[in-house]
Structures are given as structure tokens and as C-alpha cells.
């Protein structure tokens, strides 16, 4: 007679899943750097030294020891600014993505589960919302609310909740029609508690994947808003503002632009890949 298999299942691939561990290491690095920025950063990110302006990175001739990735046009240390920039990027991405996720997922689940009026109102709202070009919308919102981190976070949540609402609604709809939901109802479960105990766990892997994706998007949006000078004050180091400043000197001090760009690129990529990896990890059926 068949028995429950309790032996751990072999993961596909050998032992180490690079698609999960590579982005996870990058994100861990970001978190560590952001948390310990004060002790890791070799210089004050705001300290200007006009005698040391536009120093090249360590592997080029003319570099100065201690300034590993060179300095910008005001003589500020690029590495230190990037480290403090990670702090802001991570802060925005975590807070904004979580807010977006909660807001959008709740609406999506309500629409998908209850149908009827809830569904119609929320779906129409999503349609209307998505008709606006997102970047323009963000710029408009920040312009109205004033610059600053809070505005950036609010703008991201207000714009991107539709991404969660749409996908989570579709997934909830699929799960609501599954037989196990009927079984729970026959077993006397209340309608609201069925949504919570039966459906939510099945939608969660999708939500986690979206959350990771959204963290990447939040970093980009913050960088865009910094780039057009609508995020926090220009003195504060953000990757976006570094890219914006570096743009002017691209022909003779390319490192000011390139290093924050690389950090941005890998962060966004890592969050996206991590989302998919975590989804597979959390879904026992997919394993």
C-alpha cells in the first residue's frame, strides 16, 4: 500500500540553485552595505574636496589610494556615495513595494473572490488607472505632493497597485473555482475565513514574486525621480542623482555615471530573478 514519501525531494539542478543564490547574494550585500554604511563607507559622502575632483578609479593611472572608485566633479568619493545611495534605494524599495503590495493585493483578492459589484468597481478602477502613463503620473504626483522620500513612496504605491490588483485578482479567481474551496464551504467554513485560510496561501507565491519585482521597479522609479530632481535634495546621495550628475562628465569621468548604473542594473535584475526563484521555492507543487 502506498505510503507518504517523507524523503526530501531532490531539487532540480545540483545542490546549489544559482538562479536563487546569485541574486540573493547581491541583495544580501546591498542590505549589509546599507545597514552598516556608516562604518563601511571610507569617506563622508557629502565631503567635497575640489583638489581631488574627478579622480579615476583604482585601476587607472592617476588614482589616489583610498578613493577606490574615484571621485565626482566636486571631489566626493563615488564609492561612499554609492554605499549611502544603497541605503536610500533599499529603504524606498522595501517600504514602497510593501505598501503597493498590501494595497493592490487586498483589492485584487476582494475583486477575484467576491465578484459582483466589488469586482466591477475595482476592475474599472484598474482600467482607468492604467490608462495614465506611469512615469508622467509619478512626476505629476510628486510635483503636487512636494519632493521628498515620502512623496516618492506614496507615488509608487498610488501608481503601481494596479499591477498587484490585476494579477492577484486573476489568480484568486482561478483558486476560487477549485474544488477544495467548495469542500471548505461544505465543511461549514465562513466565506471570509475561506478566503483567508484556503485561498491566500495559494495566491501567496504569486504575491511574493510580484513583491520582488516591485522592489526592483521601486528602485528604478526612485532613480528616475532623483534623475529629474524630484526625489530628495540633490546633496543626498542617491543612485539616480549620481547618474544625473555623472551624465555631464561622461566623456572624461565616465566612472561617476557607470558605477551607480551598474549597481542599479544588478539590483533591479536581482529582485526580478529572486521573485521567480522564491515563488518556486515557496510552492511545494512546483518543486
Amino acid at each position, binding site marked *: 500500500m502506498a505510503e507518504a514519501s517523507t524523503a526530501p525531494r531532490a531539487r532540480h539542478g545540483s545542490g546549489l540553485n544559482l538562479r536563487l543564490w546569485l541574486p540573493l547574494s547581491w541583495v544580501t550585500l546591498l542590505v549589509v552595505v546599507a545597514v552598516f554604511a556608516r562604518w563601511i563607507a571610507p569617506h563622508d559622502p557629502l565631503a567635497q574636496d575640489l583638489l581631488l575632483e574627478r579622480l579615476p578609479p583604482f585601476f587607472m593611472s592617476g588614482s589616489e589610494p583610498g578613493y577606490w572608485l574615484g571621485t565626482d566633479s566636486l571631489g566626493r568619493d563615488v564609492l561612499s556615495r554609492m554605499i549611502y545611495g544603497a541605503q536610500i534605494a533599499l529603504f524606498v524599495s522595501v517600504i514602497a513595494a510593501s505598501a503597493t503590495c498590501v494595497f493592490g493585493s487586498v483589492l485584487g483578492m476582494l475583486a477575484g473572490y467576491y465578484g459582483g459589484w466589488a469586482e466591477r468597481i475595482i476592475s474599472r478602477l484598474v482600467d482607468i488607472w492604467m490608462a495614465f502613463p506611469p512615469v508622467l503620473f509619478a512626476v505629476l504626483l510628486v510635483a503636487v505632493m512636494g519632493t521628498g522620500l515620502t512623496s516618492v513612496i506614496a507615488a509608487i504605491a498610488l501608481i503601481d497597485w494596479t499591477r498587484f490588483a490585476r494579477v492577484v485578482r486573476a489568480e484568486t479567481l482561478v483558486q476560487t473555482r477549485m474544488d477544495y474551496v467548495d469542500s471548505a464551504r461544505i*465543511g461549514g467554513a465562513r466565506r471570509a475565513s475561506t478566503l483567508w485560510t484556503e485561498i491566500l496561501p495559494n495566491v501567496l507565491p504569486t504575491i511574493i514574486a510580484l513583491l520582488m519585482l516591485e522592489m526592483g521597479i521601486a528602485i528604478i522609479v526612485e532613480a528616475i525621480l532623483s534623475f529629474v530632481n524630484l526625489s530628495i535634495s540633490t546633496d543626498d546621495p542617491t543612485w539616480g542623482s549620481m547618474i544625473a550628475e555623472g551624465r555631464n562628465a561622461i566623456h572624461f569621468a565616465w566612472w561617476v555615471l557607470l558605477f551607480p548604473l551598474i549597481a542599479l542594473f544588478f539590483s533591479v535584475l536581482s529582485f526580478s530573478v529572486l521573485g521567480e526563484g522564491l515563488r518556486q521555492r515557496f510552492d511545494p507543487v512546483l518543486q
Partner: protein
Amino acid sequence: MTRTVLDIMNLTVNLPNRTRILRDVSLSLEPGEVRALVGESGAGKSMIGKAVLGILPPKVRISEGEILLDNEHLGAMTPVTRRNTVARMSALIPQDPLTALNPLRKIGPQIVDPLRRIHGWSADKARARALELLDRVHIRAPERVMASYPHELSGGMRQRILIAAAFAPSPRLIVADEPTTALDVTVQKEILKLIRELQRETGTAVLFVTHDMGVVAKISQKVTVLFAGKVMEDAPTEQVFSGAAHPYTRALINATPSSADPSRSFTPVPAQLVADLHREIAQDDHLYMTVTS
């Protein structure tokens, strides 16, 4: 008045455009009785069970008729009372054991939670009852199975778990919705035997939905034959097999291959008969639309 577990009176179930899925269906079950519901796919067999259990698909409505569970009118209850009554009185053995268990929850809580809800039992008591039933459906190491996820178990095992879950709260009525269709032929027999055994031990009435006349002969005392949502015949099983009154029932029996006697020929349901029945239904529909519009 005789005590019935389930009494369906003149049940008509509609789509929003007034297409009828069930047409004036009446049937009843006495305690300890097994009634088979047969018909081809789309005849509305499963829909009857869903109407009783209150899990009709969205937009499908009961437009006429009454359902009585233990002589209580389900239609007259508030939604909350109805849900509690259905939970206390009845259970479902579903068609597809692969989708009827929540893939992300362990087996244990999926059996234990309803018991606690329905009877207000303590966690220990509900757990003991679940273990008892899992043991009864011949699951070895029930403790370990309770701690497993559905995907770690085979289809036959999951169906046995669902049978245990259905019988655990001691319901008066169980709707078995083609419980063997999704399983291997080798497992089917065992599952059928299990349902019959438990049914006899507990005296639970079973509404057994199937399209397999062979299964009907083995398990039921009464048969209801459906065609396009309409009752064609309602008779004791023996009588149906010795000499069915309705030509469609006879055609269904003749269309069943016999494993006991493989040489016996079987014939498909004659197309002419089906066409005649459909014409009858269409006239009926025309009348219905004229009267109700």
C-alpha cells in the same frame, strides 16, 4: 410522514438566461439508503448534489422547488443557518481527489478543522476522530499522513483521505460525486468497496452520482435516471435491471459492457432514441418559455 434524510421536490435550476439545467426533479433518500443518480455527461447529475450542498456555480440559481434535509426546508433558512445545517448534516466525496484538497495545507488540518467547526470539538478530540477514520480507510501511519501535503500522496490515497474526511463528522447524507472516475481501474474497486462498507457501518444515506451502470448494480438500492436534467425513471435497482420501464434506461443498461461475461455484446444508446428525447425536451422548453415570459 416518513422520516427522510433528503427530499428534493420539483427542483428546477436555471442559468440567468432561463436555460434549465434541472427540470422539475424530485427524489428522496431514506436513512441508510444508497440512491444512484445516472445519466450521460451533461445530464445534470452533479448539479443535483451541488444544489443540495449549496455549491452551485456562480449565476446558477434554484428557480423552483424545495430541498429538505432531515425534513427541514433549506430554502427557508438564512444563509448562515443553511451553511451550518448543510455542514452538520451532509458531506461530499468529490470527483477529483487531486483538486479537492488544498495543495498548500497539510492533510491534518483539512480533516480536523471542519470537525472542530461543525461539532465544536477540542483539537485533541477532533484529531483522535480523524486518526480513527484514516485508520478505518486502511491508511497506514495515519500520523505521518496527517503531517503530509497532498502532493506527497497518490491519487488513490487522497481519495481514501477524502472518504475519511466525509465520514468523520458522522453526516446523515453523503453526496458521492463520481468518486471513482478520476482513479485507476485497479483502485476504483477498492474505493467503491470502502464507501459501501463505511456506508453500511454508519447507516449514512448516500446519493451516488455515476455514469457506470455496473457500479449502480453493485452499490445502490434505488436508481434515478436523468436525461437533459429531467428524471426519466425512478425505481428500485433490482427492478431497473430486471426490466426497466423507460426505453432510455434499457438502452443505458444495454450499453454497459459486462466484465463477468465479456462475450455478451453491448450496443450504444440508439441515436434515434436520443433524438426523440431531445425533441420532447425542446417542446417542453418552448412551453416553459411561453408560460414564464
